[in-house]
């Protein structure tokens, strides 16, 4: 983190694929294998994000597009959704957009829904299963608090997927060879004809004003019982601790 601007330092850091995006990439490749078409992987980030794109191609994606440039630096989720939606419009013809549930660094999960809102296409979040694709319609299951709900929507649509949906494959040798050679086009604000005042930190509605470092440790009581008697003592100590902390043990055997 850059403590002065409150933005993430993404330059000079080795780019990896956000672990939760691997599931979206896997689904994209599976659908391409089943229905034909192309799986294109797109990333907005520092120049180093090219490496992550090549990794996705080595798994089986057909093409990659890197959206990068200093104008994008410090973009919040609003601007990121805007730029990615413009990039997708630039590609033109698409049936389905897949994103991970959220990034494990910024951890907002706001960009997928944001893109669908800009593109004005149907959205399903937390998708755990694609049930069927037929006649330009898709049926999906989404994982919500108390269960799974089934949604039917016309394509094109955007899905954010959860881990349950797939098991990401490893890169293949052929894929790696392709990924090494393939040319990855670089799209900037200029060649997408974007209004620069709407981009980056400048164009972002939100600002990070302070970064705190929370204390991680708790000074707990750790007991190391040795033998049956001290184990019993330890357990009674634990029960007393729970009672002191007002944990309602009366629910026991309810």
């Amino acid at each position, binding site marked *: *983190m850059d403590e002065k601007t409150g933005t993430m330092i993404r330059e000079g850091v080795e780019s990896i694929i956000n*672990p939760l995006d691997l599931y979206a990439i896997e689904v994209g490749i599976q659908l391409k294998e089943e229905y034909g078409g192309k799986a294109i992987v797109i990333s907005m980030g520092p120049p180093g994000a090219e490496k992550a794109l090549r990794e996705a191609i080595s798994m089986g994606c057909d093409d990659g597009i890197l959206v990068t440039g200093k104008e994008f630096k410090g973009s*919040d*989720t*609003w601007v990121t*959704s*805007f730029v990615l939606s413009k990039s997708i419009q630039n590609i033109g013809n698409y049936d389905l957009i897949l994103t991970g549930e959220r990034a*494990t*660094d*910024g*951890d*907002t*999960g*706001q*960009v997928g*829904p*944001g893109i669908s*809102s800009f593109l004005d296409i149907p*959205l399903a*979040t*937390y998708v755990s299963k694609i049930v069927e694709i037929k006649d330009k319609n898709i*049926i999906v299951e*989404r994982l*919500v*608090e*108390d*269960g*799974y*709900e*089934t*949604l*039917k929507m016309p394509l094109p649509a955007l899905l954010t997927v959860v*881990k349950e949906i797939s098991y990401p494959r490893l890169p293949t040798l052929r894929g790696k060879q392709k990924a090494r050679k393939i040319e990855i086009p670089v799209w900037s604000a200029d060649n997408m004809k974007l209004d620069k005042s709407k981009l980056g930190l400048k164009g972002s*509605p*939100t*600002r990070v*004003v*302070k*970064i*705190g*470092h*929370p204390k*991680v440790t708790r000074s*707990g*009581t*750790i007991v*190391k019982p040795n033998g049956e008697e001290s*184990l*019993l003592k*330890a*357990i009674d100590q*634990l*029960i007393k*601790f*729970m009672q002191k902390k007002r*944990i309602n*043990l*009366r629910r*026991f*055997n309810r």
Partner: protein
Amino acid sequence: MSSRDVWTIAEQSQGKIKEVSYEILTRGRKMADKLGVELASILLGYNISDDKLNELIHRGADKVYIVNDSVLENFIVENYSNVLVDLVRKYKPNIIIAGATTSGRTLMPHVAVRVNAGLTADCTGLDIEKGTNNLLQTRPAIGGNILATIKTPNNRPQMATVRVKSTKPAPIDRSRTGKIIKIELKTELIDGKVERIGFRKTEEEAASIQDADIIVSGGRGLRKKENFVLIRQLAKNLGGVVGASRDAVDRGWISYPHQVGLSGKTVSPKLYIAIGISGSIQHLAGIKTSDIIIAINNDPDAQIFKISDFGIVGDLFEVVPLLNERLAKVVK
């Protein structure tokens, strides 16, 4: 009269108002009081009785805006977003707070894009900045290793989703009065493209781990799927639900909805018990806002003990059965 009120987005399911609606009223109440403005609860749904709407007032709202229509019975983001955007444009709230639920985290970014609002996800703290009256939103990021405070200096409304269970609902106060504003659904706001065609409840321990007060989680230390019975027993006995580490889920011992941690669910229960979980950074980040953490692990150097309030270093296959047995005696 623009950009004044504080709004909270209530949630309902089959005519019942969800608990999170009251939690965020507590948050909203504090902000509204600091700003000296009114607090409104916004509810989209169907078959909501006036009693239920009054409860929103009794728990902190000054006003309730209700759009009651069969089309809004279930959460469909396109419809909900259109209706909310329409209300935002008409009434111009200053702040909108929603729960960081699957619906809240879907609806809010969809709306924020349309109304050019700043949105902060999964906040654990809200405050008002002195002088500017801007909303200060604090949230953990980078695996919980930092706490970022974020504001939206120029755009209105200022929007935030707030972590579930991070505040308590205010007790019901029947002396509180307020206005219930019933809004007719404009049919042109219904998108109609997306249909909800089915629902099935999560099997086994149906309770959502994010709503639970007590979570008992098992990890690799359990050694095999069958041993999860120990975890289930303790959870059942304490009136809690079952969680799991990523390791246990990846091994197929238990399904993904139980996974706690960065690639699973972030939880903040009153009591979290980690059994046979060494405590990866990702797991710790997912549980660190719990009130009390108890760990049982045979490795004295396990990271989990560093964030535990009470820990027993020992063989879980000895400790857990004995704990169950002793608990029974204590409460008799």
